[in-house]
């Protein structure tokens, strides 16, 4: 009898444990989705700025501001959703392209993130086309340097 109960409680424990895991993974799914939504918003905002850079659209201070505001909002929403916590390393059903190195010891993800925040601030302080065009590459480089180290290619 005893062994039977033991078996039952082990089985129950396993189920609870398993449930715990899948809950954690479901939460990770949401975190990953939030991270990818943040990045999609970045990509969209970037598009408007690049058009000015390439001369496809005229310089327009309001567009620049709106794009940088969109990035700031995406950044804040991701923070809210804990989109960069270590618990978001792997999802249950959602695939992530973030590399686990982000959360490894000695990772400089913090510096890469800060470079992006700083580049946004520098760009926001520009007031004319020449200033914008001089400051813009640093923003693009901030995106590039984080992806170079911490994003896997999608193929």
């Amino acid at each position, binding site marked *: 009898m005893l062994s039977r109960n033991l078996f039952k409680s082990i089985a129950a424990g396993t189920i609870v444990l398993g449930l715990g895991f899948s809950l954690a993974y479901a939460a990770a799914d949401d975190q990953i989705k939030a991270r990818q939504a943040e990045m999609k918003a970045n990509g969209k905002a970037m598009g408007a700025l690049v058009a000015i850079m390439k001369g496809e659209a005229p310089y327009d201070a309001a567009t620049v501001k709106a794009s940088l505001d969109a990035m700031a909002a995406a950044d804040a929403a991701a923070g809210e959703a804990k989109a960069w916590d270590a618990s978001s390393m792997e999802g249950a059903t959602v695939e992530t392209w973030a590399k686990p190195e982000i959360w490894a010891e000695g990772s400089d993800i913090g510096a890469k993130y800060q470079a992006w925040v700083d580049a946004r601030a520098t760009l926001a302080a520009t007031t004319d086309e020449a200033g914008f065009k001089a400051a813009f590459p640093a923003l693009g*480089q901030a995106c590039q340097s984080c992806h170079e180290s911490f994003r*896997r290619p999608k*193929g």
Partner: protein
Amino acid sequence: MLGFTAFWLVSAPRPLPASAIPAHAGNIANGEILYTAGGCRNCHKSNAEQAGLDPDLPSGGFPLKTPIGVLYPPNLTPDAETGIGNWSDLDFVNAVQRGISKSGQHLIPAFPYTSYAAMPVEDVLDIKAYLMSLPPVSSPSREAGIPIAFLLRRGLGLWKFLGLDTAPWQPDSSQTATWNRGSYLVNGPGHCGECHTPRNLIMARDGSRFMMGGPHPEGQGKVPSLHGLVETGRYKDQKDLVLALQNGEVFGYENMSSGGMGQVQANMAKLPQADVEAIAEYLISLK
């Protein structure tokens, strides 16, 4: 025993003979372009821990992570003790085009000699002339972090026997001169196929899936296909692709930074305008 003898014979290094080296006055300017297109410095740069070394020089030692272990690509500056200062032209060509070291061992194909083999010998000698024009840096090489490196190196001979294609690159006379220049840079020094062409069962590039993309050779993520870059809407036209290769993500082109492509793109940015246009002309012709 017979099998082992066969293995030993087949796996022996097959260096080029001295007669394969033409009389050639090295062209340093051409060498620098091919060195840039070939991404030599990306792998042969100095290790960040070795303070005081000029990071722009290929003095070697930066760890290169591969699925079989960590390699430390050696010093390519003309230092006599630790670099290639004492290398003959033949030593250099055998390393870059046949994957055989000065001491006669097989080199591990993480070093893409499998693509460099397609270059004319003169171009390889130009790269050597460029390297010899750099300041020498003393930086001893470091053994690969692979426990069975000795056996692996010998086993590589067998792999080369089966999978190393040493056929030189051939122009296509039905195409323009600029297309051919692009084809050469992509398939020779640029070694784009080392990542963009998937590998077959013996880990050689699978010609039947040329530039079709696939799993990343270093094991993380997938490499995109280079076919239909315009048809699939990824780039508007040749001009758009030129801008992408020259500016990458700085101009919002999203698929140019991860999985080693960022370094390739940075090299493209340093090539002469005409060469980038040639590469783009060739790439968009892959339908």
